């Protein structure tokens, strides 16, 4: 078991170095590691989807529990493959309509609630906000930011006078938002590099305990 762990660690370390070698320039080692990753990921996902979705949701209910209603969604799913037969290609519209209709129905209500109504509510001033000065200041900044940003995307009137001032404030808020997102992105990429180097130094080279 320990020997196998060591073998797998060596394979992972060598593949990591093969991917890092792209930083110098494109080369066959990088290409090999990249293709291997794509192939393994696709196969892994396929096998997991079969055993975790297809078997418990179709094979077992139909063949073990004899619940034949499950054949209907199974057939509907099969129609996705109709596009490979030009004469029957139109049949794909049935599962697509079910999928889009179902997802739209399920998403619109909760989506509106979470993304719009609750967020609108959060941007409004409530009597309770006036009891704490810091909350009030925070809420006012949020309100100014929202109004300025929304006005910046209002294109039906030329940005002049008061509108120019408001959109000017809006662009500052947008830039701060982009800056924060960029900062977090740098942190994310840095973390990925740190994770790999930690693996190389700890699990492979044993330089860190």
């Amino acid at each position, binding site marked *: 078991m320990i020997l196998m762990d060591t073998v797998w660690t060596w394979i992972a370390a060598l593949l990591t170095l093969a991917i890092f070698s792209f930083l110098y320039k494109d080369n066959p080692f990088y290409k090999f590691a990249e293709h291997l990753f794509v192939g393994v990921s696709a196969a892994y996902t396929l096998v997991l989807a079969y055993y975790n979705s297809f078997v418990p949701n179709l094979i077992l209910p139909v063949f073990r529990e004899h619940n034949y209603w499950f054949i209907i969604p199974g057939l509907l799913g099969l129609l996705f493959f109709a596009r490979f037969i030009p004469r029957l290609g139109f049949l794909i519209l049935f599962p697509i309509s079910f999928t889009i209709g179902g997802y739209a129905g399920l998403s619109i209500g909760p989506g509106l609630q979470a993304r719009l109504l609750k967020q609108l509510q959060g941007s409004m001033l409530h009597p309770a906000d006036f009891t704490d000065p810091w909350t009030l200041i925070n809420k006012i900044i949020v309100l100014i930011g929202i109004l300025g940003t929304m006005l910046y995307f209002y294109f039906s009137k030329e940005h002049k006078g008061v509108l120019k001032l408001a959109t000017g404030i809006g662009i500052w808020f947008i830039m701060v*938002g982009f800056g924060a*997102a960029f900062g977090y992105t740098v942190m994310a990429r840095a973390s990925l590099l740190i994770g790999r180097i930690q693996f190389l130094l700890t699990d492979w080279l044993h330089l860190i305990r």
Partner: protein
Amino acid sequence: MNDWLVRLAKIDRRYIFLIVAVSVILPLLFPLHYPIRVTRHTRAVFDIVDQIPPDSNPILISFEYGPSTMPECHPMAYAILRHAFARRVRVIGITLSADATGLGEKALQDVALEFGREYGKDYVFLGYKPGVSAVMLSIGEDIKTTFPQDFYGQSTSEIPMLADVHNYGQIPLVIPLTGSATATFWLIYAGARYHARVADGVTAVMASELYSYLQTKQLSGLLAGLKGAAEYEHLVRQAGYTQREGRASRGMDALSTMHLVIIAFIVLGNIGFFLSRRAAKEGVQS
């Protein structure tokens, strides 16, 4: 001096890669022990888990990260699991991303072994289920219908820990650990639709767009990237639940040093850009 800065702005990027690599490797080999300051959003997640009574209703951790986001999310999983298992808080593990199946299973097994927790009684792993939002909605109706079997093929209706768990009503906290938009999906389908309490653990790329949901209290807490994981590890260690220093905490020195190097590059790059632009203008005028 000006020539030097202009030349620096045009430096071969491979030298930059090398300097960045050195700025990561050195602090990992020789730790600087920068202090870790805990944000209130991380503390909020910790406090919720800390207040759940032992051996009561389980929390749900959804593992939704793959090898590409593992350095940020995997330490979060270990830190939360150490906290939960140290306090005998039960855990249901699921995954909505195929890549995460092996990672989630390993995290649960490792930490359960560390704290002597028993499968089926203290934790359960229900495995991967495709469908994302459909799965989230389905759990709101009945988790055992959504996952008729656990990852190992055992019927979920026979697992003792799940006997009284039907839907989000019996789950005090849902924690998706993700590097994708599913962080928001949980708010919509579990939070808005079924009033589940959701706290996200996300990669840093995802974090900035989730702050607005913290402000409206749709999110109960947030672990943001490697920093969030390190903060949680720090809290778990500070509370005496474990003495282990997690990988995220060890990575924070490298992260801070690397950030300083990148800031220096941005400043120098901008100075070089403005100087070369001025030199070009002067060249045109003369």
